[in-house]
């Protein structure tokens, strides 16, 4: 388990981290979300010693992280970068060896991962000959080639087309199922909701919400109501019991309601012919909005 405890970091007058605490468990995937500049990248760099926090600790298996541990981690930094003129198979194999694989092990793992990621025909191409999306795949391969126990990925989905994003999701799910602790940052909340058992929401350097996503939803003080009716007059929505906020769109009314309210009273409050009605725990987006506002 990767545990970050009370990390703080100040750059001049900017408080980048201000009590950042969460844990990434093996065999589970954690989505790390928060507004731009909230401290996601700084937190991830702390894991690799690239940033030294002013206070707080980062531990892996309850021990401070040493050079030997770093070899069992895989990292996709926010600043993507590889050697442009190097052949991609040589490149990935180089990083495999740097992480402690033997030359032959690394070569085999490289070929298997690049083939898996759809680059099997291009092993001898130089990186600069590849499209941006394919370069991202090579970047992922360098994070995976040494079969790490912990994967830290900074915005792995940014800039990917839907097909590549599906491939990325599939690989991450599979690694997680194989017992790897996975943490990735993203702004795509529905994607995080789809993939992750755990989440951590960071805002202004502080973790404002973290834990098992399903439990967080259950424990939330709000519920999400989604109603569509035949008519277009939704004036009734403003008078729903326990109403916190309401939005109207072409699919109907989406309202955030206090969790104690009986759904039956809500159903009764709807004016018009109901086409669909759902009353459910909040989505990650709802939790995020509530936590970050």
């Amino acid at each position, binding site marked *: 388990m990767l545990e970050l405890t009370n990390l703080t970091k100040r750059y001049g007058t900017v408080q980048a981290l201000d009590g950042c605490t969460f844990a990434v468990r093996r065999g589970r995937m954690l989505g790390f979300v928060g507004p731009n500049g909230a401290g996601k990248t700084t937190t991830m*760099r702390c894991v*690799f*010693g*690239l*940033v*030294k926090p002013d206070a707080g600790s980062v531990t892996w298996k309850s021990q401070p992280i040493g*050079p*030997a541990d*770093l*070899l069992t*981690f895989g*990292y996709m*930094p926010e*600043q*993507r*970068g*590889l*050697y*442009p*003129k*190097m052949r991609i198979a*040589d490149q990935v194999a*180089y*990083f495999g*060896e*740097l*992480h*402690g694989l033997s030359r032959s092990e690394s070569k085999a793992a490289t070929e298997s991962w690049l083939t898996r990621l759809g680059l099997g025909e291009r092993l001898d191409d130089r990186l600069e000959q590849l499209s941006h999306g394919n370069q991202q795949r090579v970047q992922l391969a*360098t994070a995976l080639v040494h079969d790490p126990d912990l994967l830290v990925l900074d915005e792995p989905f940014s800039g990917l087309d839907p097909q590549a994003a599906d491939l990325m999701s599939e690989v991450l799910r599979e690694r997680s199922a194989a017992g790897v602790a996975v943490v990735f940052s993203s702004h795509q909340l529905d994607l995080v909701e789809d993939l992750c058992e755990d989440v951590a929401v960071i805002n202004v350097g502080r973790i404002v919400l973290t834990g098992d996503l399903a439990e967080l939803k259950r424990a939330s003080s709000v519920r999400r109501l989604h109603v569509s009716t035949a008519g277009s007059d939704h004036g009734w929505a403003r008078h729903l019991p326990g109403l916190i906020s309401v939005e109207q769109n072409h699919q109907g009314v989406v309202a955030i309601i206090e969790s104690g309210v009986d759904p039956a009273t809500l159903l009764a409050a709807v004016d018009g012919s109901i086409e669909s009605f759902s009353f459910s725990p909040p989505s990650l987006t709802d939790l995020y909005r509530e936590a970050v506002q």
Partner: protein
Amino acid sequence: MTSWRAIGLVWRREVTERIRSKVFMIGTAATLLIITAIFVIPQLVNPGPDEVSIGVIGADSAPIIATARLLAGPDDSIELKVLEYDDMAGAEAAVEDGTIEALLIDGTDLVTLGQGSFSSNVGSELLQEAAAANAVEQLVAETGMTSEQVIELMTGELLETRTLSGVSADDPTREIVAYAGLMLMYMAILMYGTWTLAGVTEEKSNRVVEILVSTIQPWQLLTGKVTGIGTLAIGQFALTVGYGLALSRLTGSVDLADVPLDSAAMVILWFVLGFAIYSVMFAGVGALVSRAEDASSASTPVTIAAVGSFMITIVTLNEPSGLTAQIATFVPFTAPYVVPVRFALDAIAWWEIVFAALITIATAYLLIRVAGRIYRGALLSYGARLKLREAWSSATDT
């Protein structure tokens, strides 16, 4: 992973990727081509010995001409051509149009073109020397000496020389090797310093650095890079120099004596040490900057150190056993220049050589650790150039 393995991996990547690059291949080929041209073209343009034409007119020229032929050399290093003229106008016209370099009149007067020229007038020099030799010969005629004996007396070294160091004064080869080594090392440091400088900024400009430094220590990366680039630089340089030496032997265009082994070994050892310490300094500068464009201006202090040390060495070696020479021996930046020359002049003790080498190696190691720390500190400041103190203090640990 051990440091050796990490450094070895970086070294291997550096060497294989650079050898594969077109720039390296073309650069090496072009250098060899230029060396070939330097040695072969003069051979084609100037195939034979120097030819000197002089003219004579009037009487009494024969004794001077005979002596001049002796002076021109038994090995025909100068081929003397003598043309006889009957009328003064024709002879002067020949001087005018360059057919002859000098005209000897009655064995007493000399006519030359008299224009300023970069090439000395070999003809008139020869004739003057011959006339002087004949005059001396006449003075000593009573002693019964021949002109050959007089010339020998005038040009030979009459005093028997014995040196205290045991190095033959007649054999300047050791000194030549040491000074040539000094010059070559100086050239190599300045030429290849930019390789190291650019090489060390490579990971920053392509941003691969974050993955690398999250895996291995910055000083391991820097050591691998410096030794990898150094291997290729020294390899290319040795190939160039070796090829040049081989060509000069083949064409005979430069008269090379056999190189004394101990002096050559000392020159090579200190070439490597000198190259290493300056490479490490260039690497330190590369560690400080984040973009290749900033690197060359930031490297000025290192270049000044290299040039300054070279100049100090040249001055110092007028007195190779003097105090400044002894101090320079133990300063790691001047030692690589000073030690081989002092060794060649037999003005240094063995313990001094060993001690100087240890100081240089220790300094190089220390500097690479410092450079590693600076590298880590400057790492995440993409963009502006960092002040040395900021980089140092923002580093975590190396």
